[in-house]
């Protein structure tokens, strides 16, 4: 009886998991997860139920149906609302520091640690 319950539970679990996968994994969801909702900052277009976000989702669906690629859609929205609408900032003059600084700090930090270790070894 106990094993039957466990199997039943697992079946339910797998069943709902599949519903989840088929229900959510559409192209519109995928794209809208990468877009920032501009009037409800802190939420993605996918998460938000604001009129703006709902319109953007409808637009994405229309564009996909008319044969636009994912990149076309991002480019279109960027041309209308600026780079801020996409979560991943593109590499340009404005975002140079943003991309380079972490790498620079990583290398610089590594260098400091290495130097410290070498000095410590020499002292020993």
């Amino acid at each position, binding site marked *: 009886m106990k094993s039957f319950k466990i199997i039943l539970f697992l079946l339910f679990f797998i069943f709902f998991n599949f519903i989840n996968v088929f229900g959510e994994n559409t192209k519109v969801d995928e794209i809208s997860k990468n877009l920032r909702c501009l*009037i409800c900052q802190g939420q993605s277009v996918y998460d938000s139920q604001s009129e703006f976000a709902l*319109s*953007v989702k409808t637009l994405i669906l229309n564009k996909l149906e008319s044969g636009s690629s994912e990149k076309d859609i991002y480019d279109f929205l960027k041309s209308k609302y*600026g780079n801020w609408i996409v979560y991943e900032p593109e590499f340009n003059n404005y975002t140079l520091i943003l991309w380079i600084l972490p790498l620079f700090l990583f290398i610089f930090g590594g260098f400091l640690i290495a130097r410290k270790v070498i000095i410590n070894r020499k002292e020993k």
Partner: protein
Amino acid sequence: MRLRLPFILLFILVLFIAVIFYQSLFEEKNYIPKNINNKIENISIKEFNTNNNFFLKNLIEDKKLIAINIWASWCMPCRQEHEHIKKLSDIDNLKLVGLNYKDKIQNAENFLKEFGNPYDTILSDADGTKSIFLGAYGVPETLIIDRELKILKKYIGPINSQIVGEIKNLAN
């Protein structure tokens, strides 16, 4: 020498942060994107309550500018700004177009009956996608567009008498 280098770096960092914070004090609180394409495609939009479609370029006719006012009957600030929208209809060189946003036709008609209809033409944006072509965020919003379909001004939120004056100057 050993102490001085981290100290200088720290000083530069603090100075850098202070300058950025100081500059941010004077920045606009709302986010307005800078390098956007201000030119709108010549899209066609359905007329409100008819089956006619209008291309934006044909709407302007012999006028100098178009003002597109995005409104909805369910939007409270739209009621506030309606008095000022009426003043825009008196400007000679301006074609005043209303874009009814995600609204029920009956409610929108009641709104116009109650507050008056100042628009030369009313278009309908039932699913909100046309507003995205205009780069709009929601209601109310007013865009001033020239004959080449370039957005000259974008007023997010309800307009006031000062903005009406600004638009008058642009049109004359």
